[in-house]
């Protein structure tokens, strides 16, 4: 009886410590993590020394961030209506990598492949909507760069947006190059925060 209790406690502790699941897709691995304190979910793709991580940002977090940086409520709401994910790309390989978000695609439940709405397009909208210059600067540098080149040990993070409903699921196909080789992977069942 005591042993059964101890076993249960052990399993519970191990479950608490190990909050990630791993999927192996050929040469790449995708890890799904859930923060035990905040319940924020993230997905990390590991492929040939490159890590691509997507972290949920809730509509409240996105709204609050931009309200604190000079956006008015209407425009902060407009941004937060998108599905927002922080994107972190880390180069742990010994070679230079580069990527261009223009080539990345996501697919939602309707099966349609879509391009990401990149920061240049957002900035044009903010200009039209009369967002202040200082707020636009904060916006511009908080978004993931559209193109980036990372040397070994470099990493970059920033927000990315997806035009799907909060709480819905998408598959993101990512692409980068290392030397002459092009890598394409899909991070499946990424859930937008709600």
């Amino acid at each position, binding site marked *: 009886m005591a*042993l059964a209790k101890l076993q249960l406690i052990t399993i519970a502790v191990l479950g608490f410590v190990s909050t990630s699941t791993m999927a192996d897709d050929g040469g790449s691995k995708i890890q799904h993590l859930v923060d035990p304190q905040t319940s924020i979910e993230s997905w990390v793709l590991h492929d040939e020394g490159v890590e691509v991580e997507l972290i949920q940002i809730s509509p409240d977090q996105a709204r609050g961030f931009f309200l604190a940086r000079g956006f008015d409520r209407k425009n902060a709401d407009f941004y937060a209506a998108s599905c927002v994910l922080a994107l972190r790309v880390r180069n742990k390989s010994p070679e230079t990598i580069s990527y261009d978000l223009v080539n990345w695609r996501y697919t939602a439940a309707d099966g349609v492949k879509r391009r990401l709405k990149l920061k240049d397009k957002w900035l044009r909208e903010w200009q039209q909507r009369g967002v202040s*210059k200082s707020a636009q600067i904060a916006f511009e540098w908080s978004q*993931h*760069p559209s193109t*980036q080149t990372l040397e070994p*040990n470099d*990493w970059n993070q920033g927000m990315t947006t997806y035009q799907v409903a909060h709480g819905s699921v998408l598959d993101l196909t990512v692409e980068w190059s290392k030397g002459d080789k092009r890598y394409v992977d899909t991070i499946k069942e990424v859930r937008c925060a709600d």
Partner: protein
Amino acid sequence: MWIQLKKFAVQINALRRILITFAIVSGLLLNAKVSWAANEEVFSPVSGNPVAPKLKLHDMDGKPVDLEKLKGKVVIVNFWATWCPPCRAEMPSLQRLWEKLGASKIQIVAVNVGEDADTVLGFMGTLDESPTFPIVFDKDSATLRAWPVRGLPTTFLIDKKGHIAYRAIGGRHFDSPENIRFITEQSEGSSMGK
């Protein structure tokens, strides 16, 4: 009864072995992560060593800081903002680097992007030790745009001749022993630069 107790003791021992194994494996994984961090190279060489773009901005006291006038010294130029989590995280390590090497060996200039002195002072108040190297303000991000920066934080090592010699994208531990040794070598090297 005695047999049951004996069985129970055997099971407890087996469980203990599992837990000890788990603890050792976890410790190894954590240590592996720590040793990776300790061995990371902070900077990557910049091909062609281009001349550093102009950087002439004012610090919190309104005092001008001009990169041109720092020729003859190795200068670390760090572009950052208070809303950028890795920028916040690496700031104490820049201060520790500054304390360890001192103004006789290097100069550090942290360029805040798009914010004002009150915002930066608010952030400084959250640190155990406020930076004592110059923090300058690039409110309209005009200086940042002239530099090869796509995301924050980005840090450059400028050689004694005023050329961009090395770059780091993403947060770093600037006061790692490897980096202190590396920067010391740069500062003690030929006055012709790196």
